[in-house]
């Protein structure tokens, strides 16, 4: 009988929870343990509720450009509660430039009429569709891409605004294919981003027509009445085993019960997860979804090269300040999503979201909730400002941008000293190297937002992908185990082998070698030697306790074949556990791939 697979997920953010939930559906018998350092789940995705205000500490919602988060919401029973961002929020976004808010154009007419760009700048951007596409697959910064495709003026304005709004990073450092893979893909496929957007919209319209449904432009933002915390809590409520909080995982190591780097013939990899203190877990599969700098620390011992690669992924620092005002104290119309102050303007604020205009229920009646972001890659020092200095600065910025002079009636400040991973140029190559390195460590997965997208959708999408990979891996392992059992049954019936098994003069190492030969040299041998201070080991032969100078058995990696001990192969872990029970924990058990001929 197979033991249920044990899976440990480190990190109870949205990535870890998505992996856990999907795995629970795919492998209902699996034991899934989620270890979380913090005292609550969700990571950066959480909603604070106080004084009638509802504040997102991290992302404010998720887009429907990818289906995974919407699907996850529906699967955990939140389908009827989904709240779409207001129409105004979808249409109206602003830039803070030259001490005032300027509307970002939302269509061609508005674009032609905007004063954000000169006519030369507008023509240069529209000329994008006629520019040659890039040759080769060399990485490119967002800034370089925007200049090449849309001209310097548009690059200065829009590339920075786009990067500030999503990554709070430096467009000269961030990689376009890593941060905006779809845009890179549009250029690659259609030769132009504008042409690509148009062609894809046309395709979607045609598909909608063919299905007889109304065409809906994608890109709507969604949340829940209870905020994104509602999603976190709904997933946790669906899990058979809730996350274990307050666990600081120190290291992830291959189990001492032995395996090499996962090569053929080694034990099916099991992992030892060591937390601070004595807490430890054993797992058949481990998924790390905590921030990459934590992953680095956990993997430093097992694979320093891998840890170094992961550790090179930089994070920015962000402070989120939620400010509640009486509606009457805010002169601005608040008819949109909010505004961005491009990082190159070097303002103290990166931008402000008008939360109560985006979703209902974010502020008490007669009040509004604004959420200001500051810091980022360019101004990390702001995160260290004390509350008074920060609030003073925020109020000055809001006075300038939105003519708010009143004091907020509510504020909450959330500091993220490692907020958003920065996918700098070379990031995808680094991820490829990390993934290549991981091939040496079957049973270990790395997830979270440090690798293939920082948005909530990216996390849930990656979570679903990882869950599928883990499930496939564990199912393949179960099949391999079954194959081993079938092999043993056939092997022990083979007359030549049977005679050797029952011979009085064939010793264990001879038998182990012959069984290994019969199985095509797959696997190797387990050498069981006395612990220090003893000259013999105890094992079982023909149902009796036997004392021997040492003992040698054949293992295919999954099972141990010790026909004098048992008619059927014994799962290696169990076999080793029994040997330790008979001889004490210090008995030496070592795996030998190919014994020298004289030993056999």
């Amino acid at each position, binding site marked *: 009988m197979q033991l249920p697979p044990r899976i440990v997920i480190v990190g109870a953010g949205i990535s870890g929870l998505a992996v856990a939930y999907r795995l629970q559906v795919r492998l209902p018998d699996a034991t899934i343990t989620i270890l979380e350092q913090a005292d609550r789940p969700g990571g950066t995705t959480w909603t604070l509720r106080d004084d009638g205000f509802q504040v997102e500490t991290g992302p404010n919602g998720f887009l429907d450009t990818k289906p995974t988060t919407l699907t996850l919401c529906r699967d955990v029973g939140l389908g009827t509660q989904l709240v779409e961002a207001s129409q105004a929020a979808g249409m109206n976004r602003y830039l803070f430039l030259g001490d005032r808010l300027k509307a970002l154009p939302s269509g061609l007419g508005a674009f032609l009429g905007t004063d954000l760009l000169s006519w030369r700048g507008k023509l240069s951007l529209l000329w994008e569709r006629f520019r040659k596409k890039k040759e080769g697959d060399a990485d490119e910064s967002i800034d370089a891409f925007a200049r090449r495709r849309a001209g310097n003026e548009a690059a200065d304005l829009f590339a920075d605004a786009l990067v500030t709004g999503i990554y709070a990073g430096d467009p000269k450092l961030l990689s376009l294919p890593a941060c905006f893979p779809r845009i890179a893909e549009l250029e690659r496929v259609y030769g132009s981003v504008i042409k690509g957007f148009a062609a894809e919209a046309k395709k979607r319209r045609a598909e909608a027509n063919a299905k007889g449904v109304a065409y809906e432009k994608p890109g709507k933002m969604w949340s829940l009445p209870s905020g994104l915390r509602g999603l976190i809590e709904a997933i946790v409520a669906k899990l058979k085993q809730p996350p274990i909080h307050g666990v600081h995982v120190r290291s992830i190591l291959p189990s001492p019960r032995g395996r090499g780097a996962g090569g053929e013939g080694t034990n099916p990899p099991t992992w030892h997860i060591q937390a601070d203190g004595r807490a430890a877990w054993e797992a058949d599969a481990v998924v790390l979804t905590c921030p990459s700098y934590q992953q680095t620390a956990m993997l430093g011992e097992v694979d320093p090269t891998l840890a170094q690669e992961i550790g090179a992924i930089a994070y920015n620092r962000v402070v989120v300040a939620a400010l509640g005002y009486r509606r009457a104290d805010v002169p601005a119309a608040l008819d949109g999503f909010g505004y961005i102050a491009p990082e190159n303007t070097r303002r103290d604020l990166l931008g402000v979201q008008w939360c109560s205009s985006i979703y209902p229920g974010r502020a008490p009646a007669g009040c509004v909730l604004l959420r200001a972001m500051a810091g980022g890659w360019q101004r990390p020092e702001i995160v260290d400002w004390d509350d008074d200095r920060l609030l003073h600065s925020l109020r000055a910025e809001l006075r300038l941008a939105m003519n708010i002079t009143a004091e907020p009636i509510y504020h909450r400040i959330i500091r993220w000293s490692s907020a958003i991973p920065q996918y700098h140029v070379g990031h995808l190559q680094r991820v490829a190297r990390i993934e290549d390195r991981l091939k040496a460590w079957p049973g270990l997965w790395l997830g979270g937002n440090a690798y293939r997208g920082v948005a909530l959708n990216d996390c849930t999408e990656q979570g679903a992908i990882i869950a599928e990979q883990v499930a496939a891996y564990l199912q393949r392992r179960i099949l391999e185990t079954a194959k081993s059992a079938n092999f043993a049954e056939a092997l022990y019936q083979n007359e030549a082998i049977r005679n050797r098994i029952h011979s009085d*003069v064939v010793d264990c190492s001879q038998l182990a070698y012959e069984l290994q030969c019969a199985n095509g040299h797959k696997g190797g041998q387990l050498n069981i030697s006395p612990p220090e201070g003893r000259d013999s080991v105890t094992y079982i032969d023909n149902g009796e306790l036997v004392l021997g100078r040492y003992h040698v058995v054949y293992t295919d990696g999954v099972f141990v074949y010790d026909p004098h001990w048992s008619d059927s192969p014994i799962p290696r872990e169990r076999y080793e556990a029994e040997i330790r029970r008979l001889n004490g924990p210090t008995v030496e058990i070592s795996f030998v791939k190919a014994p020298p001929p004289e030993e056999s």
Partner: protein
Amino acid sequence: MADIIKVLQQIAELDFWTRCPTRDAQGDDLAYPPFIFWRHKHPSPELAAFFRDAIQSFPGETRWELIISERNWVLLPARIKEHEQANQLLGGRHAAKELKQIDPEFGKLANAELSRLAEHIAKLAANPVAA
């Protein structure tokens, strides 16, 4: 009480050995007839002849058999092999198991006599004339 493995080791260095019953492990069942298995580092025909002679000259109630293969040597009560052949069993292990069931006193006696056999062998090794 002489330990057979220690005696064998004193006569010529052992590369490998097993013994059953273990005698020093919990749950040991002395009704299982002794089964001693070993390999010398430097086996020789003279060494084999010495053990044959020693075993044949042992005056105890249990008759012993020494099986010598190219690699490993086995010492066990002759009745195990007789029982195996008479009942067409697969190897001495099965025969020993059956004897444990059908005649537990035999195993107990053989195990008790194994120590005396060990003493006998040790004495011969120390003073061949004593044979």
